């Protein structure tokens, strides 16, 4: 299919680009491993002082860490590099060439740049999720597991939608190149269950910058904390937010008039 052919071409181009900086990729992977060690060490310090964190056990926090790392990888592999490229292209007008292509502009600016070595991080994250699930003793029902997986994907879709809205704002305010800093700043709050945070912080990362919807909520489904209607609600919200974001993007594109004209 058309889209898949394009994706695999992008992938190949990005692999070629990155092969020029092999040592960099290796160092970055080692850094990722170091932070993984740091994160596991910090969890072991927490659980050497307590049996549960707000009712959550060690296995659940390891799974949460895996989901958090998955979201983080989405950011680092696609969102940050493409934002940088996009911001520059609005400022210098090279977005013209993207808009002229016979493919969805949103698709091109989302996947043009891929940090390929981050696939390693995806593997680490999946390892953590499986490891955490085993630690919890595999008590989850198939339905809980299925909603966990669906909500993880839909949570990432919500973050992606928010990203589209944030960068589309650049069409109105060209100098708004801090557009994704707020997303990045609150990422760290996703490492722990949002239920332990004070009310205002929980509201902030659930409704304003919905990091918790992509990290805590899937875990709540896994623990059986969510009623079926809540799961369906979150899935509905993610579909709606994606549609709204795509509409907002089209609306923003109409504002764009190039940099020189």
């Amino acid at each position: 299919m058309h889209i898949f052919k394009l994706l695999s071409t992008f992938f190949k181009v990005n692999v070629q680009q990155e092969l020029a900086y092999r040592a960099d990729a290796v160092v970055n992977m080692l850094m990722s491993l170091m932070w993984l060690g740091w994160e596991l060490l910090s969890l072991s310090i927490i659980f050497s002082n307590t049996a549960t964190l707000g009712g959550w056990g060690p296995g659940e926090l390891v799974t949460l860490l895996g989901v958090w790392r998955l979201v983080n990888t989405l950011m680092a592999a696609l969102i940050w590099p493409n934002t940088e490229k996009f911001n520059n292209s609005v400022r210098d007008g090279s977005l013209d060439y993207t808009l002229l292509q016979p493919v969805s502009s949103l698709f091109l600016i989302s996947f043009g740049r891929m940090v390929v070595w981050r696939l390693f991080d995806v593997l680490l994250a999946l390892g953590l999720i499986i490891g955490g699930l085993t630690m919890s003793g595999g008590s989850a029902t198939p339905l809980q597991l299925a909603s966990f997986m669906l909500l993880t994907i839909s949570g990432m879709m919500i973050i992606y939608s928010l990203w589209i809205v944030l960068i589309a704002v650049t069409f109105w305010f060209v100098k708004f190149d801090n557009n994704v800093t707020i997303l990045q700043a609150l990422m760290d709050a996703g490492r722990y269950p949002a239920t332990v945070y004070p009310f205002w912080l929980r509201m902030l990362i659930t409704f304003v910058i919905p990091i918790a919807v992509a990290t805590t909520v899937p875990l709540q489904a896994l623990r059986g904390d969510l009623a079926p209607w809540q799961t369906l609600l979150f899935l509905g919200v993610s579909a709606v937010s994606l549609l709204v974001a795509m509409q907002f993007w089209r609306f923003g594109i109409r504002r764009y008039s190039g940099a020189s004209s």
Partner: protein
Amino acid sequence: MLRIYQRLWALHWAESWQYRANTLMYLLYWLVSPVVYLAVWTTVANTQGDVRGLTANDFITYYLMLLIVDNLTSTITVHILAYRIQDGTFSGDLVRPVHPILGGVLMNNLSFKVLNFGALLPIWLVLLVLFRPDFSAVTWLNLVLALPAIVLGFGIAFLLGAIITCIAFWTTRVHAINEFYNAVSLLLGGMFVPLALLPPLAQQIAQFLPFQLYLSFPILLILGKLTPEQIGLNFGLQVLWLGLTWLLFELVWRNGVRRFSAVGA
């Protein structure tokens, strides 16, 4: 000499003020982790009454004080200098009639700090209302003693940051080394967890390493958690580490500048 520093201050203050929106963003970014750790540890304390003798209020006062101390003692040298060594623009700094690091870079750190601190204060007051800490254990004597502890702590942190940045003279890139330094500092300096909750052996090691001298020590000093003997020991360690980092900095700087080949020039 004083006039040079005055001019450098004016220059960097104007520069920092230019980027005040970025400063605010940076502040928000920096604020999230301590607040998250605060929430994690108070949750643990609330579920079981206390954590090895530390109550919820102990964690709240600890982390609120941490925001102030970390703001005063942390440095941004790696972020403002490493890329200049990497791309060769550092050559321009070398021909100035004042030490590039102890002059411009230091002043840049200080102006950033003053601006940042001004922005932190109103946020800190809001957090005070939100968390309602009980600071009754803080005495004027502790606050006065904390001043030299914070100045010495900043000196150590500044020199360590400068040493790490100077490694760029050999390796060009210092990002990975700096990340590693940050990770160790977060665990052994008292950021992720008050040091009293580390395993005993780790506590012993952390006590004699420099990381806690610019974070945990000033905080505990202000909060009145230290005995006179511990205060004496920590001040002694601060002077010792300041001397050691100074010697190391001189060594790295002298040899590094000679190796510097000004990439792109």
